């Protein structure tokens, strides 16, 4: 009787898929898009209420060249490949992306002595466009930079990309291609059964031939559910300050610090939304949901902002956000295939850039040759790099970010509609501006109620 009811339950809930992907962050969504596009039937399971709503939404949103990656690692290879794939994909579907270039600035003579090593590493990573910039040229190009710079390296292909539109585009393509998206569904257990997997969740039990673990901060827990003990995620807190759009003219490039053994340092970068960000801090924390900012972190970032760009602290702060990087004890991605189980763990801040390459790699690992067709998708533009909806007229609801009623309505009618205010923010930028809802918060609340 017991086995009979199991069969009945399975039959009733149509739970048979080729692949179960755990985690709808930028990596999981990219894998879902890739495998769905390759003809596999996929289910994308996400513990949170939305796509890209955890670590994927709170990072520096840089498009890395991988010039500073550890040569020979999988991360180095996938970041390089991902840069190329994401640049192309972004132009096809309308993800805000700009190759603004980075200047890695040395603030002490000792830091200058690290330059040859950095250039060598970049070359070893197949990136030859890195070049030294004299102090005079540096200040000519970034006149607002603080005093005391001793030299710089230019990495012309570093860029910025929209961290909200990217996972959403992947997931939208996947869902339109037939991938099942299960939100608010946490994986509670995994069993190997025959040639596949039973995955117990807070919702239905799912069954598939392949299991992809893209659970980000929780990828070590999912890995352990399969009896492994290969890595431990230590969440690393990164606090960032978003400065007002009126500060945007202060710099043109991403301004990087010379990395040390322990940290990549604080950067100042433009965003695709036309703000400037300063960060991140780097602090290991215990809890995987501890996205609190700290007084020390904010004071440190403010001091760094003032040192790097003295005019910056005179501008208003629009937002503070905190992301948790999925750091492990290993120096590389934890990306392996074993008996139908693909672990995509330990994907750190480079995951956004590498996402499409990671997905491609996963597809190759499981032995599927068919590649997805070119995307037939146009994402709503929420960046300042291309014309915005309001420039065609409309009823502006959010004045700071100039979000029109039409854009909000389209978001609600989209393939993966927002379920909460944060979801609407990420899709339209509503409430993300300098007033933080002082003017339009109540009206947006009303629109949410419909």
């Amino acid at each position: 009787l017991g086995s009979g009811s199991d069969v009945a339950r399975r039959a009733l809930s149509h739970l048979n898929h080729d692949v179960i992907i755990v985690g709808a962050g930028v990596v999981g969504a990219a894998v879902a898009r890739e495998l769905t596009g390759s003809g596999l039937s996929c289910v994308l399971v996400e513990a949170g209420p939305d796509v890209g709503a955890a670590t994927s939404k709170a990072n520096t949103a840089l498009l890395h060249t991988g010039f500073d990656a550890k040569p020979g690692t999988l991360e180095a290879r996938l970041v390089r490949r991902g840069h190329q794939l994401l640049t192309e994909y972004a132009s096809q579907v309308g993800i805000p992306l700009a190759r603004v270039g980075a200047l890695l600035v040395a603030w002490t003579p000792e830091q200058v002595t690290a330059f040859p090593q950095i250039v060598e590493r970049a070359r070893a990573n197949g990136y030859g466009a890195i070049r030294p910039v004299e102090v005079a040229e540096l200040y000519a190009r970034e006149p607002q930079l603080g005093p005391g710079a001793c030299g710089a390296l230019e990495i012309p292909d570093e860029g910025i990309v929209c961290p909200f539109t990217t996972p959403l585009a992947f997931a939208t393509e996947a869902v339109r291609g037939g991938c099942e998206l299960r939100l608010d569904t946490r994986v509670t257990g995994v069993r190997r059964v025959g040639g596949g997997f039973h995955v117990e969740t807070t919702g239905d039990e799912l069954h598939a031939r392949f299991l992809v673990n893209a659970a980000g901060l929780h990828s070590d827990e999912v890995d352990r559910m399969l009896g492994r003990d290969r890595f431990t995620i230590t969440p690393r807190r990164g606090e960032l300050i978003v400065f007002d759009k009126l500060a945007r003219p202060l710099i043109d490039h991403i301004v990087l610090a010379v990395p040390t053994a322990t940290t990549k340092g604080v950067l100042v970068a433009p965003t695709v939304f036309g703000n400037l960000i300063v960060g991140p801090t780097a602090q290991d924390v215990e809890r995987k949901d501890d996205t609190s900012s700290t007084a020390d972190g904010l004071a440190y970032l403010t001091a760094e902002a003032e040192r790097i760009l003295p005019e910056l602290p005179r501008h208003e702060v629009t937002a503070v956000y905190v992301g948790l990087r999925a750091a492990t004890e290993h120096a590389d991605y934890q990306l392996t295939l074993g008996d139908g189980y693909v672990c995509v763990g330990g994907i750190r801040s480079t995951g956004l850039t590498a996402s499409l390459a990671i997905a491609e790699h996963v597809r190759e690992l499981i032995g599927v040759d068919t590649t997805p067709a070119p995307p037939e998708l146009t994402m709503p533009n929420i960046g300042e790099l291309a014309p915005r909806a309001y420039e065609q007229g409309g009823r502006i609801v959010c004045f700071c970010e100039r979000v029109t009623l039409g854009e909000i309505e389209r978001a609600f009618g989209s393939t993966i509609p927002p379920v909460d205010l944060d979801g609407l923010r990420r899709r339209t930028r509503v409430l993300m501006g300098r007033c933080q809802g002082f003017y339009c918060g109540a009206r947006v609340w009303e629109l949410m109620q419909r």
Partner: protein
Amino acid sequence: MRVIVVGGGPAGLACALELRRRAVPGIVVLDREEQAGGIPRHCRHRGFGLRDLRRPLSGPGYARRYVELAREACVEVRTASAVTGWSADGGLEMTSPAGRELLRGDAVVLATGCRERPRSARLVPGSRPEGVLTTGLVQQLAQRGAPIGTRALVVGAEHVSFSAVLTLAHAGVRVVGMSTELPRHQSLPLAGAVASLRYRMPLWTRTAVAAIRGRTRVEEVELRGLETGRLRTVACDTVVFTADWIPDHELAVLGGLELDSGTLGPRIDTALRTSRPGVFAAGNVLQGAEPADVAALAGRHAAASGVTTWLQERDWGTQVHVSCLAPLAWIAPNAVTDTAVPPRGRFLLRSAMFLERPRIDIRQEGRTLWSGRLRRLTPGRSTALPHEWITQVDPKSGPIYVSAH
């Protein structure tokens, strides 16, 4: 002839009405909201309109009155019309449901108002749960019948903070306390008594918000005594950040207008001329924040003094800057071009700290233009300073400094 007024709050509408009264043709008021009237539309309490309309009105009543007056005077008020920037040749780019337009004016009056700094701009650490609001948002949520919370901490102790207390109490939210970094509240003496007696609400002075905690909703706020360093945890599900106003100066900055480093509003002379010929500014975009009727009178003043003269004479002149020295925070107007009398015949002076019987000196290059004692300076509240000294300003000499001793 065309005069474009950006912002249909008290200052913008009062400006347009005065221009109309003076038979200036081609006035248009642009307001980005669905209804004109500005911030008072959301302030339920009474006491609006005493200085300008000579009658006590509620906020919404006051806003409605101005909209009515504008309609009766046949002033063109366009709502849902958001000015987003300037074209290279000085026109205003505007978005409305009708499309995108470029408007050119012989004069432009910026009356874009001010807003309260939200939690993020104040760099308050902690988690980012729901329930962290500003007075402006609380008032609008209450007006729409939206749920606000059950227990609220009010941050700030100015007039508007007590207004937030009233709105919260009326919406059924229990106010568990009020905190200010200053040594006492800045409102009328009565306000503190009413708050503590009527709402039995503690006022924590010399106290900063150290952290906000809560997962999805605010659960508690940690307060820190600035002198004692002592921490106090307040259980609440709502935090309202009040006051700490900042002019909505985006359009001013995009238009290349000079800002005053004290007010953060456009620098204006006594006729409310900005640093850009043909562009005026009035109301709370000049400084955050004055009562609505004071803003309205500034709008009226811009029309009567600055705009009318400009349209006739097309002469701008050169500003001599007026700046404050610490602990003074700002003065408005903050420039002198000629002997035009400032709005309401006074300069407004603000201090960053409480000062009793301060002596104020106004000097230009070592020459004292005015010196005198004021009764009191209270942070967040303006004190009037006489204006007669402007006749002594040497337009060819250096900047003017205002100091307190």
